[in-house]
């Protein structure tokens, strides 16, 4: 049994107990899921503060929604959809959207500056460049890239989580990889002409 399957089995046991009214199990479930939900929320919002708001909304709402989970899909898939819906609700507020767009524009400006002058690649510069490239991916591409390449989910699993067909997941993944990697390589003197 893989590490993820073991984690799933542990979570499923907690879900059953929490559904039966075990408050301790519910608290454990919240603690168990917190990191994962936060990571998903961060990938969708691109901002730690917004991610915190989304996580709080998801976990508080879980207390009322858990009884509706019938086990027709994996709990992870169901929870991921809750997180996506919460993030979408979060961004229905126009001000937040504007703030996020402003941040993306700032990231683009940073990349233009550092990318042109990056003759010496140090670890922090590398991270700045890749973070900026990741941050300005369209939300769907960032979501897929994060789940598949950074967190190690299989494209078929992500397709189920996002309620999309695997071919579409692949298309988003390839677009995201191209955007991120072209930025990484264009910051290298050896490849700057080839990838810009």
């Amino acid at each position, binding site marked *: 049994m893989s590490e993820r399957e073991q984690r799933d089995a542990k979570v499923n046991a907690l879900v059953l107990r929490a559904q039966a009214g075990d408050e301790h199990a*519910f608290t454990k479930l919240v603690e168990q899921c917190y990191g994962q939900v936060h990571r998903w929320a961060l990938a969708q919002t691109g901002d730690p503060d917004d991610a915190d708001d989304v996580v709080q909304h998801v976990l508080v709402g879980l207390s*009322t929604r858990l009884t509706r989970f019938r086990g027709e899909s994996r709990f992870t898939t169901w929870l991921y959809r809750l997180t996506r819906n919460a993030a979408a609700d979060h961004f229905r507020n126009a001000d937040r959207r504007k703030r996020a767009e402003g941040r993306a524009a700032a990231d683009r400006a940073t990349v233009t500056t550092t990318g042109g002058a990056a003759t010496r690649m140090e670890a922090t510069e590398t991270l700045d460049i890749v*973070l900026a490239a990741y941050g300005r991916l369209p939300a769907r591409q960032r979501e897929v890239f994060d789940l598949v390449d950074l967190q190690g989910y299989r494209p078929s699993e992500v397709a189920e989580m996002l309620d999309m067909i695997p071919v579409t997941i692949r298309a988003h993944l390839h677009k995201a990889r191209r955007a991120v990697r072209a930025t990484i390589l264009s910051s290298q003197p050896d490849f700057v002409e080839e990838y810009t």
Partner: protein
Amino acid sequence: MRCADVRERLLEADPAELRGEITTDFTAHLAECTTCRKAAERILTAEDALRAHLAAATPARPASYLVPLVRARVRSRRRLTRFAAAVLALAAAGIAIALFVGRDGEAPTHTIATVPPDPVPLVDATPGQRVAVFETDNPNIVIVWTF
């Protein structure tokens, strides 16, 4: 494969391919060509840095206020559920009483259910004879035929 093809494929290849974990023409070229391998390593280093950064940015445990908040919400929901159940039970009891008492608010004076009286024989037939009873349109007239 030519370097130009490999450079193009670098942009979409699976990380396992970039690491050379599977054997293809692409990975064979990476093993031989220093420049292309350098590009692949550059991508892997940057993506590893991103992965580590995002993992570090993800809190392992919820903020201290969150768990009590969630617990309070669960308790509040339970109280609400119990209250709703009590209200429903009271409402059901009220409806039952209203139906029993009747719309005018007075208890009914008639008996709701009674034990039917023992049947009274209409005729005494001689043992061994058969009896046929015919009802007519007039409820006061019944034809009894013994044979």
